[in-house]
């Protein structure tokens, strides 16, 4: 089956992005496809490479990057939600006059259409939120 995921809370504050990661791993293990994970609301905060969690704790951002690379998952950060919360890629930095960017590897910034598209193309869209 082809899954789309919607993640609406940031990492560490709520368990939702941990659960989403575990769900992805279990689904992939069973041979399902994760077409896209769409990060919305505070979920966009999953996509910053500036995090440095304690060494004895999990690194949620890296976990997303690695999972995406290994399984060719499209990690999309909503542009409007990202602008409100300060997640920026090179293009956004230029457009909005920022002096740097903080997007993590494997994530891209795009519009809400990517979420609706996932809804159209996937067999199921699951929400993980707080």
């Amino acid at each position, binding site marked *: 089956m082809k899954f789309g995921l919607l993640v609406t809370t940031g990492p560490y504050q709520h368990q939702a992005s941990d659960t989403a990661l575990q769900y992805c791993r279990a*689904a992939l293990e069973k041979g399902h496809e994760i077409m896209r994970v769409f990060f919305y609301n505070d979920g966009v905060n999953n996509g910053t490479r500036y995090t440095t969690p304690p060494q004895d704790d999990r690194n949620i951002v890296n976990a997303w990057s690695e999972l995406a690379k290994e399984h060719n998952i499209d990690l999309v950060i909503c542009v409007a939600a990202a602008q409100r919360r300060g997640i920026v890629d090179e293009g956004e930095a230029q457009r909005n006059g920022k002096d740097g960017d903080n997007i993590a590897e494997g994530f891209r910034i795009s519009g809400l259409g990517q979420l609706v598209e996932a809804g159209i193309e996937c067999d*199921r869209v699951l*929400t993980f939120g707080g």
Partner: protein
Amino acid sequence: MTMLHTVNKSPLDRNNLDSCMSMAKKGSKILLIEDAVIGAMDNTAVAEKIKGAMNDFSFYVLGPDLQARGLDEGKVIGGINVVGYDGYVDLVTETDNVQSWV
């Protein structure tokens, strides 16, 4: 159609599970995850309500979330199925749609 409803908030502190049960059709499956897993335990203030709802719904609870909170699977309400993340995936694929009561 059969729907899967997931609930991730504690039914002792928030109304998510109540809302879910009031809008889920008879025959739906309800999976308790994250902070909602306390709702699967027997002898809580909501246990009788959930036992009553078992006539209408099939209940599931995520084992890893129970274990994290030190909640004993042996004390889960009889008839509630403990599943892992793999079972969570199966519940999604075996039903026709899913709604998350976040």
